[in-house]
């Protein structure tokens, strides 16, 4: 569509500049765009967070609900991550059920959090085999200006960190009453790199995403462990490149963690 044509044109410029390690917006290769974070702005949500990364704008909200545990894990609750690309986020998005991209994003953010053991599912159990807490994380993309992965994982974590646990009375949730905050033991975050003309760059902006050969997102925790890996796009990575990204991911995600203040 109209808007995308300009980005495609800029692709040539992006690919040219990267040869001398330069980027369209003047950033360094491993530099994040400016980030703004707003937490706990939705009262009906149990936890919420809005992240603006450059011009990418993502809103996450958490709701906790009680349900029967899955039969194979009777003493555990769980999380569910949903992603909706709102149609205002780009001229090419249309309203409707999540497409491949939204689905991939939801599943990668889910793995990043789930596998990190940031939330102890056993602690979500209320009554074994009968009731457990389920944490619903819903992410809404308001403006796609590149790197939805990092923005979404940051918003999801930001929302989880201010999530309050609803009070239960006779197995029913009591409105507007809470019993403390959700325990989030780790700070899992995704860090994403694009590969363009053989060079790796952190936090690809929209023009760079249109020009990239491939993308890799690495989920890490503050203990320098990885909880998720996802390569996307039609190109490829060498082992050396992947290792370089992993090292950088540990370093760069630490910068993002500093931005998250826990109330």
């Amino acid at each position, binding site marked *: 569509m109209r808007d995308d044509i300009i980005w495609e044109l800029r692709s040539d410029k992006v690919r040219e500049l990267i040869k001398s390690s330069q980027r369209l917006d003047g950033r360094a290769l491993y530099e994040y765009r400016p980030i703004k974070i707003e937490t706990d702005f939705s009262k009906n*949500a149990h936890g919420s967070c809005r992240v603006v990364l450059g011009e990418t704008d993502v*809103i996450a909200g958490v709701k906790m609900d009680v349900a029967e545990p899955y039969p194979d894990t009777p003493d555990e609750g769980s999380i569910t991550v*949903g992603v909706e690309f*709102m149609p205002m*986020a780009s001229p090419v998005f249309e309203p409707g*059920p999540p497409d491949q991209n939204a689905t991939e994003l939801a599943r990668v953010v889910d793995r990043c959090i789930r596998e990190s053991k940031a939330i102890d599912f056993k602690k979500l159990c209320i009554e074994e085999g009968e009731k457990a807490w389920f944490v619903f994380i*819903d992410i809404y993309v308001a403006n796609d200006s590149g790197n939805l992965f990092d923005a979404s994982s940051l918003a999801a974590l930001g929302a989880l960190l201010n999530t309050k646990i609803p009070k239960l009375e006779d197995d029913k949730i009591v409105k507007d009453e809470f019993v403390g905050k959700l325990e989030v033991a780790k700070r899992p975050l995704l860090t994403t790199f694009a590969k363009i003309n053989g060079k790796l760059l952190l936090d690809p902006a929209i023009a760079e995403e249109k020009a990239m050969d491939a993308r890799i997102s690495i989920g890490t925790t503050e203990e320098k462990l990885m909880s998720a890996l996802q390569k996307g796009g039609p190109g490829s990575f060498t082992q050396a490149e992947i290792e370089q990204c992993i090292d950088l991911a540990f370093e760069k995600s630490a910068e993002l963690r500093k931005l998250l203040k826990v109330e």
Partner: protein
Amino acid sequence: MAKSEEIVYINSEGKRVDGRKVDELRPIKIVPSVLSRAEGSAYIEWGQNKALVGVFGPREALPQHIQDPTKALVNYVYRMATFSVPDRKSPKPGRREIEISKVSGEALERAIFVERFPNTTIDIYVYLFDSNAGTRCAALTAASVALADAGIPMRDLVSACAVGRAAGTIILDPCKAEEDASDAVDMPLAIMPRTKEVVLLQMDGLIGKEEWKKAFELGIKGCLQVYEIQKKALKRKYEEIAEEEEKTIKQIDKELKKVEKK
């Protein structure tokens, strides 16, 4: 609803459950131009309600068979985020959202010069992230600002407001607690402020004509107050820039005058 017997909707000082007077709106904040990829956008906070609107168009309506050769189609999509309501809602649109989308789109159609853009569509997307009564009015109010932000020509803005009744008193802009009153009436209303033409009108509740008239007239007053807030929001950006550049402008004016004197 047993609760309503315990709640005092209007106390002896004429104050409502949230401290407001009967004809007082909740605080409203509107900011246009908040999204870079939408052609027009706005963010609104109205009481606890928080909504984001993005507008595209006029753009070619596809597939071709839906095109109208006489005018632009107005496609209004109203959605609530799963966490925007007390009990988590399914991400799939419900019938309430579909109905609101329809009547809101029809409201805006009257204001937009749709005949100037045949075969196109104007897409308006509104999402709520927190809610507490009057969401469709907040959404429509913000959508109107987003349309102006997109430069889409209109006869007037559309300003919306709800009016209701609780414990026998007609109240402007009811909040959720008031909507739960046993004799509650909830009437969302939207007008084009210049002519006071009504472009959206719905009602829940049981009410006689005289009382309805009082409510309706209070609602119109509310809409006109909302209009002033919309107007300020649209002009603010330019007025702020003018203020910031005032020093340089004055300086240049001085220099120009010097040149003229020579």
